[in-house]
């Protein structure tokens, strides 16, 4: 196999255009005669609208149209929620794209202005007079669940969107009743704001003469946008083309189809000209979905020698004012089913209450449910170790699921595919020099310095997933992926995929898959994605599924090509198909590799079709739709080393060491990049990030001046290692890697800080671990003693 194929760290082909500014994003697409839309958003978290006067705005310079609820209600259906969680009493609040008579979060759309220029549209927003009657708002999920809380939706009692439960294994009350030790904690998984580099945007062009509409949209899943848009806007799916051009990051926030997208489509349909909407960064903070927002009351039962016997939790998950497209599945299916972690836990029970609050809707955010699950389990394991006076590594070892390579059932109902959790931890401790670090920590403590070590051993669920399971868990779509692989006469290849990468590097890794399967050079393979008109149906890029599911579809398409090519080669070499062999792009009769036919020879013959075997069609092209038999379960072990300055409360991250196992790596450099980015996002939650509302529902961290994203100078070099355990059911053995870092790192850093503070008697600090919070926890602890 040539050097630059499967498994090689070749450079990302996406990068030259991205780093030289020649990539075209939605806002870079300029169509003649385009009008610009701006959204008037509610400044109140909760208010009744008694009246709207749009007359001054309508007459303002350059303004073409102003629309309110009354103008749009007949032509834009409510924004849909597409994850109908079963057996949970799910109640879906009607989410009018333009608010009807009540606004329920700061950012809820009240009116839209369409004008000749963007500035004119924004100027006119100031001229719309809305008569608001403010109502009491409720922000925190537990407060919103209280009996006397302000109610968001008339038809929904107690602001409860759902109550979902997972129960597995033995009787949970018995497990706790019989436990030698029980450890408990309340954890606030604070609200996070995704901050993709490119804000969201939509450009809609409706052609009245044909009834066809093209929508350029910042999305992770253009086929889902087309499907939902056809339902909401009434444009037939065959006449609707959705293009995700270059998309500047998503992290989950570009999964949902938003009111502003549907409104932009409506405006173009109504006016018969292209209409563009590009959100401002302030709007992005206010109205693009947020992540996390859990309050978790958790406890673990164990024996006195540190064996876990039960895990019980109650979670209040803030959902925001409405349910975003995939929101109900995040704190439930993607969270609760993962509570066994890497451990054999004989009894698990969790209640999850999804609660409406007067805040921006919450959606998937990198990791989506699994970071919140990993944090719970890893925190409890550390608490258990601390209670029993055992090393956290030792308690993990006593509870790990033993090595398995073809399936292991956990009590939440999942079957993990393969794993060697102890192997990952052992490698981590070796690479980190764990024993030495513990000795350093002890020596530092003697001198009054506070060094902490934090472990996080995780398993996550990705490669979403079998479609049959999607149906069973209420996901209103399939979860397969597709690929078309087409050879041109010259031997060059186009690959069309239904998934929609937006920065993850699949244009490179998918070319490497084709290179590995068919012996062509990766440079000869162009990967096309993001346009519903040129790509086969697919469900999109999220949940670390693009390579795990779409990559499998591509590998299977390549294998179909190989089978066909072998038949053509046998015909050309006047040999029987059974006598043919294949190696690295060469098809030859057994024992005569020098007189074989290359894949390029066969591509040419198949395309000109001068001399084809009887009954074999012309062309060299294959399509595959891959529906995975199970999820894939990447895993790993991470260690954070911190030092806390007890005088200021400042936390310095000194080292970060990761061992991840995502199966065979198609491109180890890209894997490392994903691990780096993922870890940093998780560290962001532990250390800096928090979406804060005041009690009236005003977002206090609504700009980049206030919302602290991770910066390179606050981070150490990240030490990345791996182990390789193939997935038994995947054609390439690969698992996902896009979210693993985020899933592991928040808990690792948090555990490290608590470990550092242990001599000071601090048991918990709410995230993010700002200097003041750490300092106050030390002060309080010292005050107690």
């Amino acid at each position: 196999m040539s050097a630059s194929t499967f498994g090689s760290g070749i450079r990302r082909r996406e990068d030259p255009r991205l780093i030289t500014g020649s990539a075209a994003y939605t806002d870079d697409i300029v169509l003649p005669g385009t009008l610009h839309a701006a959204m008037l958003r509610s400044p109140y978290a909760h208010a009744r609208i008694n009246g709207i006067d749009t007359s001054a705005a309508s007459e303002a310079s350059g303004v073409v149209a102003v629309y309110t609820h009354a103008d749009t209600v007949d032509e834009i259906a409510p924004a849909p929620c597409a994850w109908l969680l079963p057996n949970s009493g799910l109640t879906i609040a009607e989410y009018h794209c333009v608010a009807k008579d009540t606004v329920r979060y700061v950012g809820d759309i009240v009116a839209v202005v369409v004008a000749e220029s963007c500035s004119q549209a924004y100027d006119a927003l100031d001229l719309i007079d809305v008569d608001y009657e403010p109502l009491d708002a409720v922000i925190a999920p537990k407060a919103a669940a209280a009996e006397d809380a302000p109610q968001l939706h008339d038809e929904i009692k107690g602001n409860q969107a759902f109550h979902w439960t997972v129960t597995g294994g033995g009787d949970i009350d018995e497990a706790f009743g019989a436990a030698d030790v029980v450890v408990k904690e309340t954890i606030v998984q604070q609200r996070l704001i995704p901050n993709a580099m490119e804000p969201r945007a939509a450009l809609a062009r409706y052609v009245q003469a044909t009834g066809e509409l093209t929508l350029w949209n910042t999305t992770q899943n253009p086929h889902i946008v087309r499907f939902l848009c056809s339902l909401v806007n009434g444009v037939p799916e065959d006449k609707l083309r959705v293009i995700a051009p270059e998309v500047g990051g998503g992290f989950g926030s570009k999964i949902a189809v938003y009111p502003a997208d549907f409104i932009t489509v409506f405006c173009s349909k109504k006016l018969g000209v292209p209409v563009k909407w590009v959100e401002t960064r302030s709007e992005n903070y206010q109205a693009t979905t947020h992540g996390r927002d859990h309050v978790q009351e958790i406890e673990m039962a164990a024996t006195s020698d540190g064996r876990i016997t039960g895990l019980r939790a109650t979670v209040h998950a803030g959902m925001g004012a409405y349910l975003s497209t995939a929101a109900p599945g995040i704190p439930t299916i993607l969270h609760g089913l993962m509570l066994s972690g890497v451990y054999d836990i004989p009894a698990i029970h969790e209640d999850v209450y999804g609660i409406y609050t007067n805040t921006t809707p919450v959606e998937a955010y990198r990791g989506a449910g699994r970071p919140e699950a990993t944090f719970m389990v890893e925190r409890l394991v550390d608490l258990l170790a601390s209670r029993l006076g055992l090393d956290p590594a030792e308690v993990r070892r006593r509870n790990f699921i033993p090595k398995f390579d073809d399936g292991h059932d956990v009590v939440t109902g999942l079957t993990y595919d393969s794993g060697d959790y102890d192997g990952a931890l052992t490698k981590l401790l070796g690479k980190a020099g764990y024993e030495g670090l513990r000795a350093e920590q002890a020596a530092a403590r003697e001198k009054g310095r506070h060094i902490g070590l934090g472990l996080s051993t995780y398993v996550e669920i990705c490669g979403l997933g079998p479609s049959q399971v999607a149906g069973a868990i209420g996901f209103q779509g399939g979860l397969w992926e597709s690929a078309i692989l087409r050879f041109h006469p010259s031997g060059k290849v186009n690959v069309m995929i239904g998934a929609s990468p937006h920065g993850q590097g699949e244009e490179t890794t998918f070319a490497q898959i084709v290179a590995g399967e068919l012996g062509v050079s990766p440079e000869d393979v162009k990967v096309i994605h993001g346009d519903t008109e040129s790509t086969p149906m697919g469900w999109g890029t999220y949940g670390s599924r693009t390579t795990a599911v779409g990559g499998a579809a591509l590998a299977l398409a390549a294998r179909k090509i190989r089978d066909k090519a072998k038949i053509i080669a046998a015909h050309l070499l006047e040999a029987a198909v059974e006598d043919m062999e294949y190696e690295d792009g060469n098809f030859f009769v057994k024992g005569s590799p020098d007189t074989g036919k290359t894949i390029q020879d066969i591509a040419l013959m198949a395309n000109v079709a001068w001399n084809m075997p009887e009954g074999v069609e012309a062309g060299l092209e294959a399509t595959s739709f891959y529906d995975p038999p199970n999820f894939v379960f990447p895993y790993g072990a991470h260690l954070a080393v911190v030092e806390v300055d007890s005088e200021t409360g400042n936390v310095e991250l000194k080292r970060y060491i990761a061992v991840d196992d995502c199966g065979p790596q198609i491109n180890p450099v890209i894997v490392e990049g994903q691990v780096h980015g993922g870890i940093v996002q998780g560290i962001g939650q532990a250390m800096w990030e928090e979406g804060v509302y005041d009690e009236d529902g005003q977002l206090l961290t609504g700009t980049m001046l206030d919302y602290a994203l991770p910066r390179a100078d606050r981070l150490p070099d990240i030490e990345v290692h791996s182990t390789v355990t193939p997935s038994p059911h995947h054609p390439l053995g690969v698992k996902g890697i896009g979210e693993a870092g985020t899933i592991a790192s928040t808990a690792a850093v948090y555990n490290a800080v608590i470990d550092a503070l242990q001599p000071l008697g601090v048991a918990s600090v709410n995230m993010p671990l700002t200097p003041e919070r750490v300092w106050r926890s030390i002060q309080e602890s010292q005050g107690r003693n």
Partner: protein
Amino acid sequence: MYAPEFDYHRAGSVAEAAELLSKHPDSKLLAGGHSLIPILKVRLASPSALIDIGRIDSLRGISSDGGTIRIGSLTTHAELASSEVLNVAATALSEAAGMIGDPAVRNRGTIGGNVAHADPASDLPAVLACLGAEFVISGPEGERTVGASDFFEGLMTTAVGEQDILTRIEVPASGPGEGSAYAKFAHPASRYAVIGAAARIASSGGTCTGASVALGGLVPAPVRAGAVEQALVGGPLTEESIAAASSAVADGLDDDEVLGDVYASAGYRKAVAHIWVRRAITAAAGRSG
């Protein structure tokens, strides 16, 4: 967001800028634009016109006659940070300039724009108050010079009037036996100062012979820490004595004036301010020897 509509004029000289200011009463001066443009974009200000003074070369540059360092108001933070003259003779100023924002901000932002905007969380006001800088303002009545204590009037207000142009800042050069330093607790998002402490120390044989300490970040306008200065002068510059003197800083802070936000409350800032004061004094003392 998008800024509301405004007219744009480019001035070729200070005189022309003054004339444009008088013609357009509701206008704002544009230098590096790093404070003004964001304010326009969030529509907190809507001037009818911007008068761009960014290309008036006479307002740019650093020169020294040995006793006084003259800094043109258009001098960028990057130029302050890399200035040999400042590194030697006003170390705290170049040190603080190097901690502002990020390279893009430092390459565009100017000292004049920074101090005229007078954001309480900005770094340079405290440093200039500490170093005893003087501010040269050109106005309709001619040129006048204002000391730091009169220049910074309060939260985002200075002695620069609507018809005035800040042309130059003068800083006394430190001599032998003197050193200065800046210590900063940076906000993790904005990089503005949660607490900024500047210190200038003169010493002789390990004894403090002169001290100037100023605080920014946690107060509406930079303040001198008089109690800390008094505690230092005449005493030894040991770790203990510096720590003891620094702890006096909280006494000089008016509780009603101390700023707090979501990230760091007023109470916390007041409680830990002494640490940054101590760090600045320690570094300045080290440089005074």
